[in-house]
């Protein structure tokens, strides 16, 4: 259970990225965060694991505070929060296995990690996760030898290696083609479902959000302007979030995406997955 109370972030430049944001995410719920660029989506999720230092407000995860704690405690809390990035953010020159194992860095000492001597259970877990995301035979490849979709799967495995209690997902599909985007989103939802993991997913693609999320939160200029189910996301609400826009054209885009989706499904059936 994640609790955010009155979170405000003002950057040094004076820009108020977040303005008194309060939000709570119960266990097992996947929340989509939508809003125009610059609305503060990215700042919000980075405030949760304090890659961005919030100006004021309080955040707790399973009752333990994330704000106002020392560096050591913060590291211990960060281990419990898995994060997935837009451009995958893998260390390209390391192998896939090292990237997945880097999810365990918060749990092992420096020399162990330096010598790549991770505990046997970590290795086993890493293999299990690679198998789960379908990359069992890529473990020894370098990350920059993988395709975009494969890299994001490694990113997911790395986050899961942390045994997280919360997932923060920042535009997971922004660098992927529509078909791969859907595969990745489906995988994410499935995994969160299997583990009862709560997640906050920043997403710029409204139709994709409506298709996959259980709950959608709309952010505009640092404030929450909508909080409801995908079905409640009407044109009037979208206009409130994004400003005036031709939503009919966007819906048409959705039809195309649906076709792409059906295509994916067919292919998956064909491969017997």
């Amino acid at each position, binding site marked *: 259970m994640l609790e955010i109370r009155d979170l405000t972030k003002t950057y040094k430049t004076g820009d108020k990225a977040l303005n008194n944001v309060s939000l709570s995410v119960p266990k097992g719920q996947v929340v989509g965060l939508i809003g125009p660029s610059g609305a503060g989506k990215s700042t919000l999720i980075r405030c949760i694991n304090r890659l961005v230092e919030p100006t004021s407000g309080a955040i707790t995860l399973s009752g333990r505070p994330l704000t106002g704690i020392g560096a050591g405690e913060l590291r211990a809390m960060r281990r419990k929060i898995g994060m997935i990035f837009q451009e995958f953010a893998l260390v390209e020159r390391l192998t896939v296995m090292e990237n997945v194992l880097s999810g365990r860095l918060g749990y092992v000492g420096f020399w162990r990690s330096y010598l790549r001597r991770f505990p046997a259970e970590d290795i086993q877990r890493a*293999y299990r996760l690679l*198998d789960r995301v379908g990359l069992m035979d890529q473990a020894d490849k370098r990350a920059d030898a993988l395709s975009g979709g494969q890299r994001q799967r490694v990113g997911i495995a790395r986050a899961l290696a942390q045994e997280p209690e919360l997932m923060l997902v920042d535009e997971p599909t922004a660098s992927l083609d529509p078909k791969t985007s859907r595969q990745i989103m489906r995988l994410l939802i499935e995994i969160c479902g299997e583990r009862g993991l709560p997640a906050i997913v920043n997403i710029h693609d409204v139709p994709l959000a409506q298709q996959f999320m259980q709950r959608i939160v709309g952010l505009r200029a640092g404030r929450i302007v909508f909080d409801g189910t995908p079905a409640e996301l009407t044109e009037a609400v979208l206009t409130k979030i994004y400003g005036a826009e031709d939503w009919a054209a966007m819906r048409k885009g959705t039809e195309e995406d649906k076709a792409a989706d059906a295509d994916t499904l067919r292919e998956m059936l064909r491969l017997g997955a």
Partner: protein
Amino acid sequence: MSERDYPLTWKRPPQILTHRGWRWGLQIGFAIWLVLALSTLDPNWTRIADGWERGMRFVYGFIQPNFSSRWRDISNGLVESLTMTLTSTVAGIVISVPIGIGAARNVGPAWIYYICRSIIAMSRALQEIIVAIFFVAMFGFGPFAGFLTLTFATIGFLSKLLAEDIEDIDEAQAEAIRATGASWWQVIGYAIQPQVMPRLIGLSLYRLDINFRESAVIGIVGAGGIGATLNTAIDRYEYDSAGAILLIIILLVMIAEYGSSYLRRFLQ
């Protein structure tokens, strides 16, 4: 589906040398070399212990530099160094441009290409100091020999980089100009010069900085400049004057570096 047995260990696969023998051979060879090389060093510890006090005096000289007692020598050396730097850079650029154009594969005929490339190779292969020794032997002591040395070194540096830049230009632009029926000179002027000019200015400023630093060295073999003053100061064990000279060199190099990065931004 039952839980599969996953491996309990993982070893990072070697990235560059995949063959085991090569990896071991290289490591053992390096270790043997290191032992041999270190054993040839043969430091004379009593001499070093004697030098310790002198070393401390140099450190003090650096912290409390003495600009005044040798100021005449220092200022003469500086003037020589600075004038040498500017004149040799300008002369170097003037000579480098035609050689650089000739040494670009996509511009001139083959025989010119080979002549220009061999001039560049010669200039780059010879150490500045060795060149300076010869020029001093031929032209006598003083900054004129230094000027020639730096000009010679500048030619190798600038022509090579200029030629590479010309080879890297966008061929489509040159093609377009050629298609209008332009002459060889017009192609150079309209298609190549605009593309390489900013880089040439940047490289020239960089070379100015290098030439100043080099001008502080070639004085050691008699080619004038601040290096001669420095050499004398060290020979006379006047470490406070030597410290002052080194600080001046560092300061001027810093100014040149910041100045040239500012100028480059201003010119682009």
